[in-house]
């Protein structure tokens, strides 16, 4: 059974490493500040006993005041999982560092989020639209599209 | 040379002269041209029908069975459909070359039938360089294919045409060398004399030569497993992607005419031509040609296809050395063992075949295609 690690425990561990960066923690998720994303991600990937080597999915949700990005991480070795969330408040210039350097599986998923929601990822090797054509205006999955 | 039964048969000596008809030579020519054209076109229609039904049965389905009783009129329906289609030439393609390519591809294949003995002296022209003429003429077809690939102004077509040229040129050599084995046994290049010399069909006396010839011939006529140039799953339709209407029909005809020609050549060289007990010669000829054709499309429906570098490797590293060895062994047998009963030779040859095939399949690996980029 994949153990969903307790958000509170991990939040405690992360707070030691990155003081002040943890905004919230739930039963199986931890919400962090968006500029700490890369450092937290590499910490989670490289620390022994955590070793999240598999990025299951990246999702972005448009709550009208903010965007929330949800990273689902899994460790194949230890068979446990964790959810990392971060929030972006600037709708017009939403951007975030890309994790495709750590997990290549983020490549197409980040392009999809840019295409449909308009969140740019810095450091992504090929930040282009993926499903819609290049000249398309707007980002369809936003709540204020149309 | 005592391997074949002594003396050429009386038949072959007479057939070298034109018949004693009113009008003489030119009437003979006209009659045979008509016979050959009819035979070729009718056989192609028959082959198309049999192949589609046969492959359908191999694939647990019926073949075409709607047009006419048992689907017999299917090739006719195909021909009518293709004739009625619009003839499209790509805008930037070379018009003259585009128009000439099917012609250049089809005419040489028809020319091959001039020296195929249909039975009992019935042949258009008994050239005394028969088989050499066949090989020379059949190489011209590939020029037509390359012209087609070039004139289509299409990268896929060019890719397909290049593959085809490379393949055909590479497989010419094992083809020739295996023919030389037969020629050594006969003592002549003439097709009629080759058939006359086969009291025992040469497939028994030259098993390795037969296998090499068969595989090289399959590669020459671009049939599975060497049909990568029209591999529809890779480069759409290869060199005839941009052809439609009658020109496409010509290429289609070329493919089947080549199969027919190769079946006829194999029958003549290795299976004893029109010779056989009881039935009239022409019927035996048809039976044998059809048998070879059945085998060819049986292979088509069963085996996957090879990649171009594997095809080339097979020609140069496997077939060519084997063909040379075959030649050497045949030569040694003729010179050093002149008066032995043919059955001993057959046993020796089969043994040599078994040993060589086993040894070569250990040595020869068809893989390794990755290039450092």
């Amino acid at each position, binding site marked *: 059974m994949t153990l969903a690690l307790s958000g509170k425990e991990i939040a405690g561990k992360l707070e030691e490493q990155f003081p002040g960066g943890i905004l919230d923690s739930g039963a199986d998720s931890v919400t962090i500040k968006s500029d700490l994303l890369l450092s937290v991600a590499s910490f989670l990937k490289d620390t022994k006993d955590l070793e999240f080597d598999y990025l299951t999915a990246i999702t972005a949700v448009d709550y009208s005041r903010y965007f929330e990005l949800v990273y689902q991480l899994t460790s194949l070795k230890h068979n446990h999982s964790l959810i990392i969330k971060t929030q972006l408040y600037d709708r017009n210039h939403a951007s975030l560092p890309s994790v495709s350097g750590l997990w290549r599986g983020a490549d197409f998923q980040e392009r999809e989020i840019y295409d449909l929601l308009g969140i740019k990822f810095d450091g992504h090797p090929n930040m282009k639209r993926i499903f*819609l054509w290049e000249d398309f205006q707007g980002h369809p999955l936003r709540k204020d599209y149309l | 040379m005592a391997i074949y039964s002594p003396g050429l048969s009386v038949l072959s000596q007479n057939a070298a002269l034109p018949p004693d008809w009113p009008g003489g030579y030119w009437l003979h020519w006209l009659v045979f041209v008509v016979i050959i054209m009819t035979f070729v076109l009718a056989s192609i229609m028959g082959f198309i029908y049999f192949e589609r039904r046969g492959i359908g049965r191999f694939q647990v389905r019926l073949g075409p069975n709607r047009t006419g009783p048992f689907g017999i009129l299917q090739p006719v329906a195909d021909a009518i459909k293709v004739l009625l289609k619009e003839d499209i030439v790509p805008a930037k393609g070379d018009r003259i070359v585009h128009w000439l390519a099917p012609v250049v591809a089809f005419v040489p294949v028809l020319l091959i039938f001039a020296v195929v003995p249909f039975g009992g002296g019935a042949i258009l022209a008994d050239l005394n360089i028969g088989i050499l003429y066949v090989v020379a003429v059949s190489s011209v077809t590939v020029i037509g294919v390359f012209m087609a690939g070039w004139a289509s102004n299409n990268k896929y077509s060019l890719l397909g045409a290049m593959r085809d040229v490379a393949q055909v040129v590479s497989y010419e050599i094992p083809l020739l060398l295996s023919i030389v084995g037969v020629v050594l046994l006969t003592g002549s290049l003439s097709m009629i004399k080759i058939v006359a010399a086969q009291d025992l069909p040469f497939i028994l006396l030259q098993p390795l030569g037969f296998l090499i010839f068969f595989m090289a011939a399959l590669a020459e006529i671009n049939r599975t497993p060497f049909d990568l140039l029209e591999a529809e799953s890779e480069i759409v339709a290869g060199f005839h992607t941009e052809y439609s209407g009658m020109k496409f029909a010509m290429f289609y005809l070329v493919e089947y005419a080549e199969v027919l020609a190769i079946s006829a050549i194999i029958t003549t060289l290795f299976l004893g031509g029109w010779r056989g007990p009881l039935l009239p010669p022409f019927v035996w000829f048809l039976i044998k040609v059809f048998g070879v054709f059945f085998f060819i499309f049986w292979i088509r429906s069963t085996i996957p296809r090879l990649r171009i570098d*594997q095809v080339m490797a097979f020609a140069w590293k496997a077939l060519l050395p084997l063909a040379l060895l075959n030649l050497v062994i045949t030569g040694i047998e003729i010179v050093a063992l002149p008066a032995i009963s043919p059955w001993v030779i057959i046993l020796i040859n089969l043994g040599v075949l078994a040993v060589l095939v086993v040894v070569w399949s250990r040595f020869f690996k068809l893989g390794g295609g990755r290039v450092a980029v």
Partner: protein
Amino acid sequence: MAVKTELKLKTEPFVLNIGPVHPSTHGVFRMRVTLDGEVLIDLEPVFGYLHRGIEKLAEGRTYTQVIPLTDRLDYLASMSNNLAYVMAVEKLAGITVPERAEYLRVIMAELQRIASHLIAVGAFLNDCGAFMTPILYMIREREKILDLLEMVSGQRLTYNYMRVGGVSQDIPGEFLPALRKFVQRMPSYIDEYDQLLAENEILLARSKGVGILPKDMAINASASGPVLRASGVKWDIRKADPYSVYDRFQFDIPTGSVGDCYDRYRVRVQEMRQSVRIIKQVMEGLPEGEVKAEVAHFLRLPVGETYAHIESPRGELGFYLVSDNSIAPYRLHIRAPSLINLTALRDMTLGWKVADVIIIFGSIDINMGEVDR
């Protein structure tokens, strides 16, 4: 960037477009490849030709109305899509599914896995060039499965069978005897295909060692399903994170060792055998009871979010569902295995030839409905 060669030949790379309309790209998928001769030096996948905006459409439909939308995602494995979606809804709503419904769901999911793998293996062999014979044999088996599924849901391709809280209707009387007959005969068919093809020289030459995906790259690129298992990682959601009633049944997880096309092919064939094994066990233990829990017509879920994933024939299919207590989902995100498996396509194909690119792409087994959504 060009191919390193020892000869100082001046060659010029050219760009070729494979797709979107192509006999072999498993749907509307386009690859812009840069070729140096026949060797691939760059590949850029372009998709979006089948983008229908399913995620946005789902936000305007009730939870039950979304189920037919999910059918059209991976249209060759509709039951699996339905299952993953209704599991997500049930997880968030806290609905328990009756036992009989769970068992029926497992039967449908495993039948669907066999059907999808038959097409995947058949299409792969078709790409290798085996003209259509293997795929037609496999379609013959798939027809039997489609008949079974039609008995249950009335549909042959997009079943719309699962509902929130169970399945939509119970199985008819003739289903179990037909299923028993199918399960008895299927292993012999799988053996027949194995026997015909697993040791075929040409198939081995075309696919062994071709398109290797190393283990680390597979994990790092978030590959899942047979692609991940063929690279040597023993990770299957049915064992690692069991859902429905999979923890009650015995089955093995086939893995490969090298991660080439041949391994992916073998993993799929073995998975079919294991699916038959699971179905046998499920049939024996099928309990009586209801097939659907009582659920409100306009279902409202508590505010929150959840993620549910299953092992679909193509990999890990997950649904991320966010609800705001209205009758429609607030956000539905689909983790599509085919899209994520494509991440490593470029690295798998660099340095190989055009013919291999098609084979490697076919062995990943993607479905454009899922990639584009």
